[in-house]
């Protein structure tokens, strides 16, 4: 039930973002990205939250998510050579994917 709800909310968010990209231009796009970034985190918490799910924690998540999204948007606005950005982000993505696969295979980390 909880997983279904999360999947539906994720679909709605993606659809909302697609509509936003289609309808809005200029400054509205980065703002909507920030809102959706924060919203996605809140949806994730709602879907997976256990005994810790509380309004205060969800609010904190939304604020933190929005802050991170703003930082990324600002960083994206800075004129950095595109090849460097692609290399850094690609390496990070590959490392994350490899780590994920290894952890899934071992099914445990730490002790």
């Amino acid at each position, binding site marked *: 039930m909880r997983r279904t709800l999360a999947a539906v909310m994720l679909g709605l968010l993606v659809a909302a*973002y697609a509509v936003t*990209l289609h309808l809005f231009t200029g400054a509205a*796009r*980065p703002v*909507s*990205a*920030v809102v*959706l*970034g*924060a919203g*996605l*985190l809140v949806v*994730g918490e709602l879907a*997976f*939250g*256990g*005994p*810790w799910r509380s309004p205060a*924690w969800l609010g904190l*998540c939304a604020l*933190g*998510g*929005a802050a*991170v*999204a*703003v*930082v*990324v*948007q600002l*960083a*994206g*606005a800075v004129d950095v050579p*595109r090849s460097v*950005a*692609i290399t850094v*982000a*690609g390496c*990070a*993505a590959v490392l*994350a*994917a490899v780590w*994920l696969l290894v*952890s*899934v295979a071992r*099914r*445990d*980390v*730490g*002790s």
Partner: protein
Amino acid sequence: MAERVVTHARVTTKLRTYLVLAVMGAFLGLTFGRPAFIAVTAPLAVYAALGVLAGRRVAELWAQPIAHPPVREGAPVEARLRIAASVTIGAQLQLTPGRGLRARTDRRGRPLRVTAQLRAGEWQELAFELTAQRWGAPRAGSLTGVLRDRFGMIEHELVATALPAVRVLPEAETLRRLLDPHELQATVGSRVARERGEGIELAEVRAFHPGDAVRRINWQVSARRGTLHVTDRHPERNADVILFLDTFSDIGGTLGFAVRAAATLAAGYLERRDRVGVIGFGGVLAGVGPRLGTRQLYRIVDTLLASSAEASYANKDVRLVPRRLLPPKALVVALSPLVDERSITALLDLRRRGHDLAIVELSPEPFLPPPSGAEQQLARRLWHVRREAVRGRLRARGATVQTWDGAAPLQLPVGALAQLRTRTRGRVGA
């Protein structure tokens, strides 16, 4: 005594999902040259990284089970324990109940979980509601579950921890009538003996004989008759009662009936200040010598709770039973399905040795499937004939036998045995 609970850390589905979404966002953002895609999923990546850093701290958990007082069959049991963690963490625990206990379940039939938020170093008491279904001393269950911090990226799974045993006492009936022993002991009790002596109950008033105590002279009768008369009284004595459990076989649940019946009889006789003992005669010989009092009832119940049918091919007979468990002049109440030849031989031996023997035959018939076909019906009839022959052998030796199916109140077979014993007393010798 608190014990440290072993935990294993593992990656959660939440972490995997967040990472997959973050990687997807990064890929889309870089491919289409739109930082907005990365901005949408970057919070997930940052959150996952913080969660992994926080969750890698090893959470130590201590559990201190709280002992539960004995309960009767069918009564609720609250398995309680105190737990504490080294860090502030959320716990979701469930108890898999032990044999003979039943936990409250959710709609899918899984035991209900208990959720708690543990503060670092603080003890918290948790309770799991169970129902005692069958007598015995089962472990309350094994505790499993997970510990998860606020981020929920890495969870610590508990290695199953056993909780202490709960003593579930067999359900006991109240019997209005018990079997009276043919012979009493020399110690004081609440049964009126047949012989004459010091007591309260009047026996007769007779003429004085030289040697009679002066204080027993009945002066009123003596004055009326003109010659000395004395009052004879019956002394109050107690009896030794030995409950003989046949633990060679347990067909469908006959041993359970035997244990319930033994607990009921023990409580009844001890209430009447008789000395009661128990012998578990089977693959493993166990027993408690006859004694008085409430503590003896608990000793007997403990022995009964530990009794189980153990497979054995050893040829055992009554000579293996220590003398202290089987005193002379004791009434032996046997609870047996009369299936194993060794227990039947042992009962015949008891009669040969002169013990007063009453047998409650725990019928295994309700637990047998109905015969199908002519051959099985014939076999069942032969089996009935053979069992009747066994009863006949025992009755010929002077034992009284009464069948009990376990469903009817125990008072029925006990009352019937009491009547039989009154009728046959003096007619059949040892």
